[in-house]
């Protein structure tokens, strides 16, 4: 299967320093699979996530999205249309409602869905958020509900890649299981490439492939049966 995302010798150092957070990282990610990137704090996981999400730019190397280097495409457009990011701390617009967050994301991505609001309600319903909850402001929602809204937002513009940073880090076990099921379903049923960055071995265990990071590079790759 063709990879949707390829990392070729991706290197990253903070501006004005010689300290390499990522050092010639290479990997390939395919559609329809769940990937888990694991590693200790400071291993470079979050930096890699930022680069994949198009929130930052690598110092050296290339990140190919469907064969095109991210440096050559409009990163705003890539973030709006190509990738959906699920943040550990949700990063939602807290003074807006859940439905407004989703619709705004669709507007930014110039979604062609005719009835965006209804689409957003349906999407939230699918993720486990009813209409009443969808109409509440983000600050009035629980952590689990906020994370579900974060997932719905990441899916709203139908991206090829979904990247999740510790998606269950702040959640209880039941909610964690629900979220993980959703992520597995997105990859296996809807053909998305799901990349999960996590500390948790339990979370990593649901992945099709696990990439372990140490000192700015992948130490090993393990394919799960």
């Amino acid at each position: 299967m063709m990879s949707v995302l390829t990392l070729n010798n991706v290197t990253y150092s903070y501006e004005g320093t010689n300290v390499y957070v990522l050092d010639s990282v290479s990997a390939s990610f395919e559609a329809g699979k769940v990937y888990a990137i694991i590693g200790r704090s400071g291993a470079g996981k979050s930096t890699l996530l930022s680069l994949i999400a198009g929130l930052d730019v690598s110092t050296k190397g290339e990140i190919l999205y469907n064969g095109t280097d991210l440096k050559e495409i409009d990163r705003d457009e890539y973030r709006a249309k190509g990738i959906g990011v699920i943040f550990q701390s949700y990063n939602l617009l807290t003074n807006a409602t859940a439905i407004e967050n989703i619709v705004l994301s669709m507007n930014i991505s110039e979604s062609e869905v005719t009835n965006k609001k209804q689409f957003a309600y349906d999407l939230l319903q699918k993720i486990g958020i009813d209409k009443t909850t969808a109409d509440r402001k983000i600050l009035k929602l629980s952590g689990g509900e906020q994370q579900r809204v974060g997932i719905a937002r990441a899916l709203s513009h139908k991206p090829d890649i979904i990247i999740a940073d510790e998606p269950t880090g702040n959640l209880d076990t039941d909610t964690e299981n629900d979220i993980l099921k959703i992520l597995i379903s997105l990859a296996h049923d809807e053909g998305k490439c799901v990349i999960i960055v996590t500390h948790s071995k339990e979370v990593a265990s649901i992945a099709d492939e696990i990439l372990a990071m140490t000192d700015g590079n992948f130490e090993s790759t393990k394919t799960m049966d």
Partner: protein
Amino acid sequence: MYILTNALKNLARNKGRNILVGLVLFAIIAATVVGFVINNTASAVIDDFRTRFGSQVSITPDMEVARARYGDLAYLPRAIIPPDQALAFAESRYLRGHIMTALKSVGSDYLHAVGEAGFTPGYRISGLGMEGDDPVISRFRVMGNMWYEFETGERLLLEGQMPQAVGEAMISHELAELNDLSVGDEIMMLHAAFMPEMGAMYLRNVPITYTVSGIYLDMTEIGGGFPAPLNHRRNEMLTAIDTMTNPIGDGVRAFLIISATYYLRDPAYLPYFEAEIREKGLADTFRVSADEASFRAIVEPVEGLRSVFITFVIIVLALGSIILVLLSWIAIRERKYEIGVLRAMGMKKGKVVKGLLYEMGALTVICLALGLVAGTAASQPVADNLLRQQVEIAGRTTPSGPQAAGLLHGMLPLPEDAPEPLSEISVHLGAPVMVQIATVSVLLAFVASAVGIVNITRYEPIKILVERN
């Protein structure tokens, strides 16, 4: 479109800080409205006054120069504009109009004057060294075109009618009773007239006959003392100026004082008008000027008011801008996270900026509407109050009373010559003022937003999110 919708929703979402920014903006706009309205109205009033009062011309004799040039006795006739000249000046094409009154003192051989006691009519002064007749003592005044007192109620028509034809005059009720005169009677008065062809100081008492067309009642009090007959209002004969300027025989006019006020079409015509009347014979012992004193007395309160408000608006705008910029900067800094999220979602920088500007723009429109209403409502009482103070100040600092020309002619000025200083301004909000205020508000809001926006959009979204998380 969604950016505008989202911006409008954000107004309500961030209502706490928007109310704060809105209050400052409202206060600035309201204060600016007051300032602009008063400034523009005052400017219009000043322009109006400049047209109406700034064009009034004063022709005043320089008595010192005349005395030095013609001597103690001969300077007086030369300190008065000859009637022929006064009439000729009035025909200038630079004038919008003129007001002309005349005065001459007359005597009589047989009429008794009101207020005289033990006086023999026809008494003449001798030994003045003049050639010709000894001048008869003047105890009466003939007044030309002095009708305004019938409008003010100081005089009333008792019998007959106002003079209609040359040679007709009105006399007072008291003078008529004293001399047993009635409407239709003829009276002969003696006018002292110089006869230049007989010599510079050759004088003759020329008789002129008037027909009594009407009898008036003088409503004014005589006062504490007893005025000399010549100064007694009941001894004034009222007639048309044409009667007075009519030749009294052999092309000679009676000794006559004409008070003329000329109004230029435009104050800029003054030099041309002066050149013309000099050519028509105005002596160089006269000064020609625009009536700056009256103009200043009226305009100074308004100009004072305008300068107060210009200062006020400048201070409000300066302080308000600083406060607004700070508030806006703080407000946008508080929204740093929101901006980070929007950028992380893929919203382009330009669209983020557009959204923030839409928000500020919508807030400005709301504040502008409220500020215009409140400012307009406040303008009138504020203007009235400040104008009252300015008028009081102007009243203490500018001279009042009859104008110099009037005093020299021994006459009180006409009501038209003494315009009352402005005591009220009707402030109004015209379209140009609204455009000016809207421009100022939008610029202010734009500058205030720009400071925060430029600052906040420098950051990459990842930095904002990492900072917060």
